[in-house]
């Protein structure tokens, strides 16, 4: 586990808790303020992907000790690690070697002046080109105000030549000023100034490159581009990985994994989605392959129509995949199906006459069953150290941490909530295979828990159920399900929204 320590109060690295001090370097990690619970797990997963050991990575809370603050201190073994991580990070804007911070400009200035000259001088040398990046959290700054601030930094004694494009050294001046808007932003972050050397920044442009708005082949549940990248980062997908999405759909998670250099494989029970695709505006056929061609990515190494519940994978197949990532079907938009005839429909089925044209029967597949199949298959098919990343739907009424499916070969690494509406959310679950698959251990684990049913199996009913009479009167509960919760309860804020 990556260590998290509270803020020491003086803005300097904390070593007063008796723990061995890490030999690494501490940076200010400035997050994008969205998907709040996903941000630290993403960096921890990437640190592991680039080869950092858990004990080399440590979080330290920012001034004010605000859990959801976009500013967190992060210790990494080296600057090189920070640079490697930054090539993949989606939910962090930048990492800064802080030279000073303070509640007021005067405090900031005093802190920068007190920062050792020997550490500053090499970066301020006249032979370097440089620029200063100004960012403000909680309120915006006009271009004029930014330039004024940069001029006020004159005491730093920059000797190099300003160059806005591709400078050799970048500095960051970060302002946090939530003012009266504090209540609109989940995190009540106290006012703060930070200044330092910008060590690494992310390329969020990749989200636009792959935006679903221009994606050729899409379905109603195609995974949002940003989230698909975050999922791949959680799973540690990298060049040379073999990755599987067992609910591939239109292949949006496969595309992101292929972008990171993985060889990808996709399964789906729906033949229309995985094989037939649809017809484009010019009459062309659009399929998963169209998306790979669109981005110039190598095609999936395998696409198969199969049922995860009655799957045709050879029984001795094991330790095949480095990552299994998927969005299991659940009952709000796309409910789960599995092979077989529902008992009540058995009498109405026509006899099978021609197996080539016969459409096999399907019956509902509860989320509890689906996740049991997913976890057991992942425990078998992942390499040790490989990761399973999937979405678990949740509602405030039914969520219970104890209900998160477990498996004797898998360890829970992260559980991050994304609130979707006032009535339900989804949690990105990351599990790591920590020991080889032991069929007997898995069998006895499940024998002790014969019923896979979860409270969330009622998701559809919970989301669409009749609102209390008083609330219903105010917000006609239409067939679209409506996100309005009426006046019965205080609204939960959609924390996934971009502020």
């Amino acid at each position, binding site marked *: 586990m990556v260590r998290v320590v509270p803020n020491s109060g003086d803005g300097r690295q904390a070593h007063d808790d008796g723990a061995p001090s890490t030999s690494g370097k501490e940076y200010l990690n400035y997050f994008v303020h969205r998907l709040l619970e996903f941000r630290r797990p993403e960096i921890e997963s990437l640190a592991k992907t680039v080869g950092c050991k858990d004990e080399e990575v440590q979080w330290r809370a920012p001034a004010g000790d605000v859990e959801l603050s976009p500013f967190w201190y992060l210790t990494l073994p080296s600057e090189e690690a920070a640079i490697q991580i930054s090539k993949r990070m989606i939910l962090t804007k930048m990492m800064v070697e802080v030279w000073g911070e303070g509640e007021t400009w005067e405090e900031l200035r005093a802190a920068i002046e007190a920062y050792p000259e020997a550490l500053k001088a090499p970066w301020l040398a006249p032979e370097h080109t440089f620029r200063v990046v100004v960012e403000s959290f909680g309120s915006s700054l006009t271009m004029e105000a930014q330039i004024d601030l940069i001029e006020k930094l004159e005491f730093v004694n920059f000797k190099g030549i300003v160059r806005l494009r591709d400078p050799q050294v970048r500095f960051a001046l970060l302002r946090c000023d939530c003012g009266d808007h504090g209540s609109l932003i989940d995190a009540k972050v106290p006012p703060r100034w930070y200044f330092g050397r910008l060590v690494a920044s992310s390329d969020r442009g990749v989200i636009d490159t792959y935006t679903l708005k221009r994606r050729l082949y899409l379905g109603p549940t195609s995974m949002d581009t940003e989230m698909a990248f975050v999922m791949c980062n959680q799973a540690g997908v990298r*060049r*040379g990985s*073999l990755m599987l999405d067992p609910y591939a759909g239109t292949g949006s998670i496969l595309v992101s994994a292929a972008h990171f250099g993985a*060889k990808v*494989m996709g399964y789906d*029970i729906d*033949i229309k989605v*995985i*094989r037939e695709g649809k017809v484009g505006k010019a009459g062309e056929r659009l*399929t998963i392959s169209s998306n790979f061609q669109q981005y110039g990515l*190598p*095609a999936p*190494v*395998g*696409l*198969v*129509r*199969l*049922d995860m519940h*009655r*799957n*045709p*994978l*050879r*029984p001795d*197949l*094991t*330790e*095949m995949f480095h990552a299994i990532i998927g969005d299991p079907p659940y009952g709000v938009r796309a409910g789960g199906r599995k*092979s*077989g*005839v529902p008992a009540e429909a058995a009498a109405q*089925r026509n006899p*099978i006459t021609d*197996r*080539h044209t*016969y459409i*096999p*029967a399907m019956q509902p597949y509860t989320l509890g069953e689906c996740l049991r199949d997913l976890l057991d298959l992942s425990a078998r098919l992942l390499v040790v150290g490989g990761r399973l990343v999937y979405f678990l739907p949740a509602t405030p009424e039914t969520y219970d941490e104890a209900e998160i499916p477990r498996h004797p070969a898998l360890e829970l690494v992260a559980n991050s909530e994304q609130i979707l509406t006032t009535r339900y959310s989804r949690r990105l679950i990351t599990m790591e295979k920590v020991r080889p698959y032991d069929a007997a251990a898995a069998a006895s684990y499940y024998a002790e828990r014969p019923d896979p049913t979860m409270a969330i199996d009622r998701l559809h009913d919970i989301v669409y159920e009749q609102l209390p009479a008083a609330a219903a009167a105010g917000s006609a509960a239409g067939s679209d399900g409506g996100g309005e919760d009426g006046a019965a309860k205080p609204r939960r804020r959609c924390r996934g929204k971009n502020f």
Partner: protein
Amino acid sequence: MKLLTHNMLSCHIKGVRNGYPFLIEVGKVSEHEADFDPDFLKHIFPRINWPAFLQGAEAMGCREGLPEAPTEAALTDEQFQKKFHHALLEVTLEEGSLVCPETGRKFPVSKGIPNMLLNEDEC
């Protein structure tokens, strides 16, 4: 469908005991260049059922030059790597069937994608 996928699948009809490997009935085969990655081959080699792989390669017409029973040592040989890579990831069954060796049940492969869904009387 590439031989990588073929190697992973077996017939799962209820009661079938010898459902592996599937026989391949070839309609149309195509070849697509794939990224050559020796590390990936090293990962996948010990996980491949070799007799099934050879049988599949025979059916798909890319058996030539693949040894009967290679050891891991073969992976240092570039000639072997290239042939293994080609048969595993580049040769693709576009149209055809996977035939259960026990029951003869055909699982169609169309547009490169095997349809492994069972009818209700098979599961």
